[in-house]
């Protein structure tokens, strides 16, 4: 075979490939349109059935039939969309009606799939249609290696937060980034009865390397019963734990909290001091005025800024303190006070967020 012949065949192959690619492009358009034309009317029927069922005009069978008429992915999508609007007993009745249908059995079986997108589809479905019998499946999905699957199934905890399942979440906290942690906290906030005792127990494990994340998570939960165990960690030797304690306590206005935060205002780590003054600002106790004023002269810029911002939240007394510092002898305090006093209320609220 000469080079020229080879090139000729390559050119032919390329021509063929171009024709195939264009054919795929056109076929893709046609198939999509066909699918849309087929699915859209069925979706409308389903939406009408769900509306009727929500009003009590029809039974759940009609909704189940509507879901079965859709392709599986569209049915799951429709359920996710409606689950936001319809909750409680009525939705649970639908989940039970769906439990033994062949397509939902197949979806539940997909939690063992080797492909993550099948597991994700199962997780999405179970997040809104799990029943009491699904605890084992939920546990498996909470431990799934793919993060999207774990995030999807988290919503199921709103209904089925058992100590075992919540412990799986808490075990994973050190590896979770802020947004995912916030998502779990939002989901578990309605499950205090299960979550708070488990968190209290973990807050007592002072040598646990994952303690900072536990404290952070406890802060997000905002349950008054967690205040005391969080406060007890204010003298922890790990600065990161103290940072999280100082931050979390801002959500727990209490005389004891204020005392602890005042101590943390003089912590050796500036990150702790910055969080402590921020939290004092959030609590807004006039008795802390002197502590905040003294932090205006802190060695660290961020602590000074946070202290000045905190003072703006103490009303006229805080403003007077800033005005005094603006003309005072301490240059750092003078500068930061001038900065903050120059901000509009709008900008202040932005900064204080």
């Amino acid at each position, binding site marked *: 075979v000469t080079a*020229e012949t080879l090139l000729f065949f390559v050119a032919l192959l390329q021509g063929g490939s171009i024709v195939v690619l264009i054919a795929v492009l056109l076929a893709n358009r046609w198939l999509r349109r066909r699918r849309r034309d087929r699915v859209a009317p069925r979706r409308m029927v389903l939406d009408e059935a769900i509306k009727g069922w929500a009003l009590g005009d029809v039974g759940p069978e009609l909704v189940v039939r509507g879901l079965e008429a859709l392709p599986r992915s569209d049915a799951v999508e429709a359920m996710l969309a409606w689950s936001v609007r319809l909750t409680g007993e009525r939705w649970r009745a639908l989940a039970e009606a769906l439990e033994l249908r062949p397509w939902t059995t197949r979806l539940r079986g997909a939690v063992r799939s080797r492909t993550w997108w099948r597991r*994700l589809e199962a997780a999405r479905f179970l997040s809104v249609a799990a029943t009491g019998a699904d605890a084992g499946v939920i546990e498996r999905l909470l431990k799934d290696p793919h993060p*999207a699957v774990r*995030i999807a199934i988290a919503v199921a905890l709103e209904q089925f937060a058992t100590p075992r399942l919540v412990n799986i979440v808490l075990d994973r906290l050190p590896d979770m980034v802020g947004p995912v942690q916030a998502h779990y906290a939002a989901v578990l906030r309605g499950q205090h009865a299960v979550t708070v005792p488990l968190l209290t127990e973990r807050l007592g494990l002072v040598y646990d390397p994952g303690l900072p994340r536990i404290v952070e998570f406890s802060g997000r939960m905002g349950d008054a019963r967690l205040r005391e165990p969080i406060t007890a960690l204010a003298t922890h030797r790990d600065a990161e734990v103290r940072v999280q304690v100082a931050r979390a306590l801002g959500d727990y206005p209490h005389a004891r909290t204020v005392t602890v935060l005042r101590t943390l205002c003089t912590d050796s780590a500036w990150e702790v001091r910055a969080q402590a003054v921020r939290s004092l600002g959030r609590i807004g106790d006039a008795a802390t005025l002197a502590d905040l004023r003294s932090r205006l002269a802190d060695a660290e810029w961020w602590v000074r800024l946070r202290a000045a911002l905190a003072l703006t939240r103490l009303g006229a007394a805080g403003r007077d303190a800033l005005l005094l510092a603006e003309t005072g002898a301490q240059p750092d305090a003078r500068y930061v006070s001038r900065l903050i006093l120059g901000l509009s209320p709008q900008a202040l609220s932005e900064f204080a967020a």
Partner: protein
Amino acid sequence: VNAFIHGFDAAVVVYFVFLNSFYALLLILALPEIWEQSLLAEDEDLVRLQEVGAPPPISILVPAYNESATIKASVTAILTLDYRHYEVIVVNDGSSDDTMGRLEDAFDLYEIPSTYPETLSTSPIRALYRSRTRPRLLVIDKENGGKADSLNAAINASRWPLVIAVDADTLIEPDAMLRLTRPFSLGLRIAAVGGTVRVANGSVIKDGRVVEPRVAPRFLPGIQVVEYLRSFLYGRLGWNRLGGNMIISGAFGLFRKDHLLEIGGYRTDSVVEDFDVVVRLHRYMLDRRLPYSITFVPDPVAWTEVPETLAVLGRQRERWHRGLILTMWKYRHMMLRPRYKRIGLLGFPFFTFGEMLAPLVEVMGYLVTVLGLWWGFINVSFALLFLLVALGYGMILSIWGILLEEVGFRRYRRAGDLVRLLCYAALENFGYRQCTVWFRLKAFWSAIRARKTWGRMTRTGFAAAGTGTTS
């Protein structure tokens, strides 16, 4: 002479085969990647994360130099994004036009004192402004120091842990931020993430939003639609799989601020600060053996106005290629070093030999083939067949990019747009490609002369009189 010409031709063929095989590899790798990404893109959990306020807060940095034509529309679009926690920092980089005046009029600005330490050194700041109507907005008016300098000034003023650099001539889709933060929300160890930049020319734009994407009917911007699709939808997706994404578009790239500060921010002496910062980020993370990834997510979209004249296009492409040459040269110590893993062993060789030297090889190929034909050393039919195969390959890559767009996202819904895309994919190889080769070739000369100019970009603005379109 005969031996030389044949030898050179053989070398060009080998180069051609290697390069195109690598492109084919990227193309194949892009398939599972786009499949996974489009599945995640449809994920309703993103919306749920938004509802509970979980997505991380972001500072959007908008450097603006002589952007009076587009500044109001683009900042308005950014200020109305579908995202809960973000601030917008616009930096007027000593514009000589009315950019600052437009900002003052549009957003009712008032001066405020500086409330942050200058971590990265920048050109002097003239003043800082907040808006009475848009509390999220902060405007920095500073002396001219270039785009990198503006970004550094904005990083100094930013409050949030993630920063995104957005060009002032870019229109961001409302849900783009939510989509762009998906890798962070999934808990991946991300150092930076880039989204897709698409061509806005020709699309219907209303209130700073692309409401109906269209393929520009004019030849030059139309061809760039195909070019951008190809570059983003299989080039960068393929690199995701290879673990070495080296380009995060400066027009739309999200970074962890702590990493940016650790590497000293953007370099003001680079003409392609986005490429430079990503290479330095790779080097920093790999030197310290820190776990990280720099990834590309295709579904968040930003729309940009591309050059409509050859002169402006030439300046842009010359600068891009000059930046590539200078960056490759500057960080040449990373080349083929196992310490730098896939970046050193795969990314650098590809960008040096496959991208940087490509115009040189192509021009040499044209020249030697013409000479060979002239002197009768090369068979005419062979030369024509080779040219046909080379052009055919380019066409396949372009159509593949269009196919990925159709399968994954399908923004261009009109049949006419699809036809246009296919026509441009075919026409791109006749004239346009040779022009870009010439522009890139000129970059070698300017790189040797160490020019640091950017070249002027002429913008028509996103709302051309009365029509609401860019063309």
